[in-house]
């Protein structure tokens, strides 16, 4: 019985991994060869040619730089805001705190697509259409991040904060020098998750970015799909490039990755 389970588990693993493998195969073979019979099942030597063609067709280096830039700026700002807000909610008592927390949690229940039309009109009114800030700014306040950071700071001993005050530390300094370093694991989880969310974001960037110079990788890939003559190798290379950083982050930071993932579901 126990032995019988190995085979389905192995087949499942192959199904899970095959698309990744095939992305590599397709990205390193010529487009014309991908749909021959039988198709290539081994990586080829066309990687650089495919990359050159992708650079020529969608300006891939520019597109990748846009993706990295937007994701990094968004992640830094959003994580910082999450940490600050989470700290304020966890460690200060003030009128309206409970209400604010409830409202922030409530926003998580509402699908962001309901905001699309008014946000689009707002961006048009700001003259922000086709700009990076249109992709970055509207979603900077992140309820999940705030909630996760608040939970992290709740356990921080008040006595240490008070000791900092007695030593003459300002509130900002206490936050950056004493409290925030103690919450590094949770902050890492928030950073990883905000980065992944922005890196993979598709619908909003698709609406906002309409010149090729400003495309992120997912938007650029989606425009390639619609062409009459699709460069499949280039498409797979681009998809691989879109997936690679996230895979790397996952493989290097598995623990923070999973703990961020579980933050909302299982305690402990």
């Amino acid at each position: 019985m126990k032995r019988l389970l190995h085979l389905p588990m192995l087949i499942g693993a192959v199904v899970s991994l095959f698309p990744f493998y095939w992305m590599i195969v397709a990205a390193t073979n010529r487009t014309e060869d991908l749909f021959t019979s039988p198709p290539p099942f081994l990586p080829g030597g066309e990687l650089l040619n495919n990359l050159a063609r992708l650079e020529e067709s969608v300006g891939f280096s520019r597109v990748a730089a846009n993706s990295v830039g937007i994701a990094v700026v968004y992640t830094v700002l959003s994580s910082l805001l999450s940490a600050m807000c989470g700290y304020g909610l966890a460690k200060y008592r003030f009128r309206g705190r409970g209400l604010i927390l409830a409202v922030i949690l409530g926003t998580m229940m509402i699908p962001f697509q309901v905001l699309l039309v008014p946000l689009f009109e707002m961006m048009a009114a700001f003259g922000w259409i086709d700009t990076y800030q249109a992709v970055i700014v509207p979603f900077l306040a992140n309820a999940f991040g705030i909630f996760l950071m608040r939970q992290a700071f709740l356990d921080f001993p008040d006595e240490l904060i008070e000791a900092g005050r007695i030593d003459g530390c300002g509130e900002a300094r206490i936050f950056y020098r004493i409290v925030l370093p103690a919450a590094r694991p949770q902050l890492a989880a928030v950073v990883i998750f905000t980065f992944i969310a922005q890196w993979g974001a598709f619908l909003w960037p698709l609406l906002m970015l309409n010149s090729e110079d400003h495309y992120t990788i997912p938007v650029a890939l989606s425009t390639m799909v619609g062409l009459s003559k699709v460069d499949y190798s280039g498409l797979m290379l681009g998809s691989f490039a879109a997936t690679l950083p996230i895979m790397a982050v996952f493989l290097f930071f598995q623990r923070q990755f999973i703990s961020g993932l579980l933050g909302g579901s299982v305690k402990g």
Partner: protein
Amino acid sequence: MTLLAEARAKPPGRRPRPAPWAFVGPAIGLFAVFFAYPLVASLVESFQTDERGETVWAGLDNYRRLLGDPLMPKALGNTAIILLVQVPLMLVLALLLAQILNQSWLRMRTGYRIAYFLPAVTTLAAYAIVFRVLLRADTGVLNQLLGGVGLPAVDWLNDPVWAKVALIASITWKWTGYNMIILLAGLQAIPREQYEAAAVDGAGPATTYVKVVVPQLRPVILFCLITSTIGTLQLFDEPYLLTGGGPGNATLTPIIYLYQVGFQQLDFGYASAIAWVVVLLIGALSLIQFKALGRRR
């Protein structure tokens, strides 16, 4: 008594320290501008319409129009099929895998865990495109593999039924591992003593499962169910890139329809009404699932 507690006990009337607002304010301000305002605006717009370039009050017209619009039931029907087929399929599969990976005798558990979870790590747009290429009609890799074992080729993306199958298979591929990891954490949170106690009381594996595992896992399953339901109602990237909502709207989803109405036909009022129907459905379904599966006591 700590100093902080003393500070709290001070009589009211003192000016509050500005510090909490310096920490909380920026995020609250952003929420107000980019969440609260658009939320209200979209509700208002759902009662408005555009007449010769002028926004006019339309009452319930947009919602009434939805009732007679065949595409919205189509999109909701597709969503219902995914909810009834894909979500249970994925969660049962995830629970099964979590259960197997929780067995100490299984070798290569870490390897399996990573292999099954890896799809959850892929960028949405990228994986949808990879599946689009893998599932290409005549010469796609999957069809060639099917041909290799003597099965006929399937027109995955251009047949209304197979397109749904393709969409369901893609989503299942991507999200099963994610749910598996969450369920596995839930299983591992069950104290070993409870299994031992059940064994001492003479419970067999089936009884142990029903009396120990299921009750402990209930909140975790509920979490997976609600997040999957919400995700299904918000489906956009996969059908948009895999099939474009086609063929013949066979994979149209409410959010793709919202996108078409709002940003291709530029009918903002009608798009807002569609959005609010989705919001209400998500709220209702989450509530029903919570009531049905939530803590019973």
